[in-house]
């Protein structure tokens, strides 16, 4: 099956290049549907949540109470959840100007952010408390991952605003981060809404349009980002968290697990990738014999999300529990299967190509 599909992909690509089988705008409707049906609403939702975060920090840093702490933690979770819906859109306005790295420095296997924060705190460097100056600093200091490190302790409690020698300094830094995140989220939203911006390049492929010369290249940009998103969930988020056995599990390697939002972020990523895929309406491009593929994909997504929803949260606390560990191990299998169905079966049926080295090595 797999070889057949690859052969099919090769054949249709060859046809495209000789201009006989496919029109130049074959995939433009899919591209338009993903932009309007997913990317723009998702980046707007993220911008909306990001703009709601700074006031919760102001309130918490004015008076730290159980309520202001809870409001901040809720606001942070909302931003992280909305971020999970856009972080896999690793192209165009989302990644220009290091935006994605500035929003969240991930992966960070070597603890670079923690080290830089310590060094900066030791010097009491005032520049990180000013949002404008912060935006010129190391990306590891700028975003939601840095905010998580200073606002939550290892048990997931909010410590921002607690009494202490550095309280005001840390509060000002947290506020600067939230404003920086708000600014970047707005830039991403605006960039995607711009009818003459990157969207126009995806929608009007041509020989003078940089790397997007055909509608196939435009949809491949989107499609490959969704596949990369699945690979990130598995290879970069789940596998380091699980380690080789339960004794070697490292809950801190799960993104946003310190704040207790690891599960919410994973669900947001899976829901986002699935919704973006649905928005493309690839079933319109598929011959009848391939219509089982989207059904199979959505069945797998539903399994994965239901699995995550059944977990005892927060994963930071429950990972050493056999049941949680097994469920996440099962999720790895689901992710493998999803990746294969999308990157091999669906891509093959649609005539799209994926690998950089794999398809065109040397």
């Amino acid at each position, binding site marked *: 099956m797999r070889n057949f599909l690859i052969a099919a992909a090769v054949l249709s690509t060859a046809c495209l290049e000789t201009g006989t089988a496919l029109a130049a705008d074959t995939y433009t409707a899919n591209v338009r549907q993903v932009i309007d049906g997913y990317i723009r609403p998702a980046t707007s939702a993220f911008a909306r949540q990001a703009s709601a975060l700074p006031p919760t920090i102001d309130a918490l840093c004015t008076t730290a109470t159980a309520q202001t702490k809870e409001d901040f933690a809720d606001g942070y979770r909302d931003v992280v959840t909305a971020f999970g819906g856009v972080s896999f859109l690793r192209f165009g306005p989302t990644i220009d100007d290091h935006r994605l790295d500035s929003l969240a420095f991930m992966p960070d296997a070597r603890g670079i952010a923690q080290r830089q924060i310590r060094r900066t705190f030791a010097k009491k460097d005032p520049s990180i408390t000013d949002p404008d100056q912060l935006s010129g600093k190391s990306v590891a200091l700028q975003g939601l991952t840095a905010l998580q490190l200073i606002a939550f302790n290892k048990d997931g409690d909010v410590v921002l605003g607690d009494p202490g020698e550095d309280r005001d300094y840390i509060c000002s830094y947290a506020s600067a981060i939230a404003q920086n995140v708000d600014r970047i989220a707005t830039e991403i939203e605006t960039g995607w809404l711009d009818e003459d911006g990157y969207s126009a390049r995806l929608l009007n492929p041509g020989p003078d349009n940089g790397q997007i010369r055909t509608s196939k290249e435009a949809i491949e940009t989107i499609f490959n980002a969704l596949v990369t998103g699945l*690979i990130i969930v598995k290879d970069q988020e789940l596998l*380091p968290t699980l380690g080789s056995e339960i004794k070697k599990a490292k809950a801190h390697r799960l993104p946003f697990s310190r704040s207790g939002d690891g599960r919410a972020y994973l669900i947001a990523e899976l829901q986002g990738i699935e919704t973006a895929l649905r928005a493309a309406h690839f079933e319109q491009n598929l011959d009848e014999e391939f219509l089982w593929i989207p059904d199979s994909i959505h069945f797998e997504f539903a399994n994965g999300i239901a699995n995550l929803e059944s977990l005892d949260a927060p994963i930071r606390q429950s990972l050493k529990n056999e049941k949680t560990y097994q469920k996440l191990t099962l999720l790895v299998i689901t992710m493998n299967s999803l990746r294969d169905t999308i990157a091999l079966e669906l891509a093959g049926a649609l005539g799209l190509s*994926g690998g950089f080295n794999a398809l065109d090595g040397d």
Partner: protein
Amino acid sequence: MPWTATDRTPFSRRAFLTGLGGLAVLAGTSLNQTALAEGLLDRTQLDVPLFASPRREADGSFTLSIMDDAGQDIARVPLPGRGHGMAVSPDKNRLIAFARRPGTFALLIDPFQRSEPQVLSSIPGRHFYGHGCFSADGRLVYAVENDYEAVRGVIGVYDVSGREIRRVGELETGGIGPHDLLLTDDGKTLVVANGGIQTHPGRPREKLNIDTMTPSVVYLDLENGDLLANHALEKDLHQLSLRHMAMDSMGQVWVGGQFEGDLSLTPPLVARMTRDQAPRLTEIPGPIASGLESYIGSVVANASGDIVATSAPRGGKVMFWSAATGELLGTQNVIDGCGLAPIDESAFLISDGRGGLSYLEEPSSYPDVLARPAGVAWDNHMFAL
């Protein structure tokens, strides 16, 4: 195979130098700014191992990127087209990056002394194959080239010790389609993998002699160009294009191939040899072999030279071999993983076409993703500086 066709990059040396410029040291990422004085890398401040690899950027342009051992970008040099392999000078201070075949440019880069790269173009009637190496004293660079009208493989010899790069001679490789090459530890012998495939830039990336190809690994005396040894595989493996190589701590040359025959077959893909000992093929267990599409991308030894890694990007796998026994120690899954570099005493850094840079402690541990620059696709080969 037309779907692999890529345009042959028209390349203007002047336009490149005025339009793109040289080394850009990256500010605003996650860096220690003191290491970046005056737009050059300062090795005294950069007290970490460095790595380099060509890559495709999010905007579709091609660069050579220099990273630290945490996978963070440190500097970048624009390339006029897609890169492939490179050579690192013995003192580790300079590197020369070659165009992917059938490209015609190479860039000599000195990230610690000067920001402007020196640009080298292949002579008329030739193109580069993507690999090269320095001489033991660092004065010369050997570059594999295609003399395509004469259908012969050539090693161009370049003097890179002066202000201008000069072509000072050439050696015959005794085969067609030379791809990777190695200098032996005594600095006196070149080992060259003749891939065996005839190509012509007029028909970019088309293979013209699949039925008659005869790949080989040759040992050449650098003093006089004499052919010291010529290793070919058995006749039934004549379609296994021998392309990428590494040397282990025992002086064995490991070579990985790409099979041009029937893809439903699963021939051996990796062999080891010495000058005096004919190639010994390794065994890849059936279930693994069937998923590799008979294609090895990179071959690299770890720093201690006791483990050799071979990547199979079409199968999304990296295989690890014992240098001592030739047995398969393990495999790891890395989607579109191709570039390999030695890191620390015995570990590997693995790069992939989806931007991932992973650290693999040992063959049985999982590849831990250190960094994944957004929108980036790492190209076939990565090197430790």
